[in-house]
């Protein structure tokens, strides 16, 4: 069992070393930036508009954004609107369950600063509990704005400007 444990550690390190090498890194970033799968976590009413993002008119699948079922298989949380205290716990849990590398976009005024619910006693701001990469203002934002955010995130990933396997500062 000890042997296996060491083996695992060794493999992990070897893999990490390998994927940070230049050409592999580029291939990796290219793959990831066209394969952002958001997890099915509808936190509030912006989910209505998020559904519209993947509907025939806007069709996020063009960008490789395919809403998928579980946290284990996905790499992208789109906070769809207000995070209530109960939901914030769930969102944090889902985030922790996801494999690295993972990304967060806060959609809607509510997710950023509470929006019209800013003085509610039951809400949490998304950036306080998760490392948000892109913010989308609006209540709810238009699907175009969500696509803009996804493109922004894609650009960021393509640059290699994200954490992977490194302990986050926050």
């Amino acid at each position: 069992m000890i042997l296996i444990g060491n083996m695992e550690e060794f493999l992990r390190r070897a893999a990490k070393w390998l994927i940070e090498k230049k050409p592999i890194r580029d291939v990796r970033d290219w793959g990831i930036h066209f394969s952002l799968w958001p997890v099915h976590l509808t936190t509030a009413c912006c989910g209505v508009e998020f559904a519209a993002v993947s509907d025939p008119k806007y069709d996020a699948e063009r960008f490789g954004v395919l809403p998928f079922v579980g946290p284990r298989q996905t790499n992208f949380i789109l906070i769809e609107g207000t995070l209530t205290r109960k939901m914030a716990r769930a969102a944090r849990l889902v985030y922790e369950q996801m494999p690295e590398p993972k990304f967060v976009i806060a959609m809607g005024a509510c997710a950023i600063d509470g929006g019209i619910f800013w003085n509610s006693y039951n809400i949490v701001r998304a950036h306080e509990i998760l490392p948000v990469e892109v913010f989308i203002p609006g209540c709810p934002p238009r699907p175009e704005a969500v696509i803009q955010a996804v493109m922004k995130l894609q650009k960021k990933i393509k640059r290699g400007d994200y954490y992977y396997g490194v302990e986050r500062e926050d």
Partner: protein
Amino acid sequence: MGLLTNLVDHLKAIGTGLKYLIPRRLTLMYPEYVEKLPEGYRGYLRYDNEKCIHCSLCARICPANAIKMYRGGDKKLRPGINYTRCIFCGFCADICPTGALEYTTIQDIAYEKLEDQVYPPEKFAKGVPQPVYPEKPIFIIAKVDEERGLKYDRV
């Protein structure tokens, strides 16, 4: 008998699927084609420093308290907006008696930083934030179409 209608319904469903294999797409290819929203769409706000009469009605009606009045160097109140809260209801522009606040049709912007979304009066007056497109977009107008649902005509 029930079995037969069942079979017919199965075939009809598959047939409809096959019929739709001829592409009749509803998709708006967003970053290349951008929908020009109808006049009066309530998007990001334009603030005209000259027209403002410092009445602060906009801040008073703002349902999300996104608009705040800032006291400038000339001791006059001017509005600044915080897009992290703004819900784009357009009440501020509708109550503005002089048209200093107006809505534009811009609505597709994402920010990477939290601070960028706060617009104090000076920044607010400078202009409306502009979306970034990977290439020069073609603007279209969406129209209802009897055959395809929506069609997109070039402006």
